[in-house]
């Protein structure tokens, strides 16, 4: 059995770890609230964007356009959204697994990394990192999303990439976060586009030619999807960290109580031993 001093030291170290995990849990709870509000505020914009794009896609169904058909040259670009810091449970590795265990061959993709953890994990797995935009992961701002989507679309029209994918963690609620891999380009026409356009009644008119409308609207649509991914990933990150820190605090609690028990047993047995020795000593004299 370990000595009393060892047990005491171990208990002290676990207690200070527990203080840290407790504090981190509180911090990520507060951050989660903020990130959630951000995600909710962007929802109106996103819904409006989705409806408009669906209505134009329904109207232009069957049209040939690079944004709809894709191009065959070049690799596929994957925007990978992870966190810059660890201690968030399986949050980062789940996103990375989408790519390493997905249907993509390593040599046909390039990674646009948002978040250091994902960048490092994929670089270690020998994936090609085209760009590192980790600084935008913490406080997602719309201009950042515009810059990224502008770059991706420019590379797409130059023929350097043949498609754009987005890997991020969808925020369902505080405890459920689902890692998803979504295709941004070529644009997937939602299945309900047709029926919705038909049920909408008055047909929507577009002031410009269909092709021009696609040229102008699709980039905005992709920007909004990227922005949506950023805010949801930020919310999921804090949610995942909150959960991870909560269970770490619980585990520390458990360890402390079992160590306390051990410590008390050791203390008692040493007292008993001392007593036995004294009594034996006293008996020997008399």
């Amino acid at each position: 059995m370990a000595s009393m001093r060892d047990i005491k030291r171990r208990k002290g170290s676990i207690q200070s770890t527990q203080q840290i995990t407790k504090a981190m849990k509180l911090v990520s709870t507060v951050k989660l609230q903020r990130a959630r509000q951000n995600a909710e505020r962007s929802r109106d914009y996103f819904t409006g964007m989705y409806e408009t794009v669906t209505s134009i896609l329904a109207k232009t169904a069957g049209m040939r356009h690079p944004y709809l058909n894709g191009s065959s040259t070049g690799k596929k670009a994957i925007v990978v959204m992870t966190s810059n810091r660890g201690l968030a449970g399986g949050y980062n590795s789940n996103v990375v697994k989408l790519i390493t265990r997905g249907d993509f061959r390593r040599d046909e993709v390039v990674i646009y990394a948002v978040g250091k953890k994902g960048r490092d994990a994929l670089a270690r797995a020998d994936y090609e990192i085209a760009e590192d935009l980790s600084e935008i992961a913490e406080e997602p701002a719309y201009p950042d999303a515009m810059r990224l989507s502008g770059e991706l679309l420019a590379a797409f029209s130059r023929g350097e990439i043949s498609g754009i994918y987005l890997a991020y963690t969808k925020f369902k609620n505080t405890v459920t976060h689902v890692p998803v891999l979504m295709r941004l380009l070529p644009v997937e026409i939602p299945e309900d586009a047709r029926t919705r356009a038909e049920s909408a009644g008055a047909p929507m008119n577009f002031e410009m030619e269909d092709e021009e409308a696609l040229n102008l609207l699709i980039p905005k649509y992709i920007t909004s999807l990227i922005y949506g991914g950023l805010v949801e990933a930020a919310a999921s990150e804090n949610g995942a960290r909150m959960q991870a820190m909560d269970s770490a605090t619980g585990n520390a609690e458990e360890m402390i109580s079992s160590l306390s028990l051990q410590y008390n047993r050791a203390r008692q047995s040493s007292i008993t031993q001392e007593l036995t020795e004294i009594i034996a000593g006293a008996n020997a004299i008399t």
Partner: protein
Amino acid sequence: MEQFTLRVITPDRVFYQGDVEMVEFNTTEGEIGVLPGHIPMTVIIKPGILTITEADADKEAALHAGFAEILPDGVTILAEIIEWPNEIDEARAEAAKRRAEERLRVNTPETDMARAEAALLRAIARINVLK
């Protein structure tokens, strides 16, 4: 006068929501003014001034990018960038305008003409809305 609902939404907030008599803004096809009962239409926005005519007052804002969905009973503007006059830094807008003009004048092969032009239009919209 007859009114309709105007909603101006940006990615991070609801910028404006209310009943208005008329709304005017700049689109890729030219400046337009929308009154109640307009045919359904979607237009793409070009940098310019957004003028909102309410029952008792006019409001202006600098609208830079986005698109608008016009329906007979309401208009929804999805704005990527939009600012009220009190959010604009005039000195910065002036500096941006001069920079963009300079870039367009020098016009080296590396100049991204489309970007410089867009920057100039944005700066002009900001300055105009302050006047």
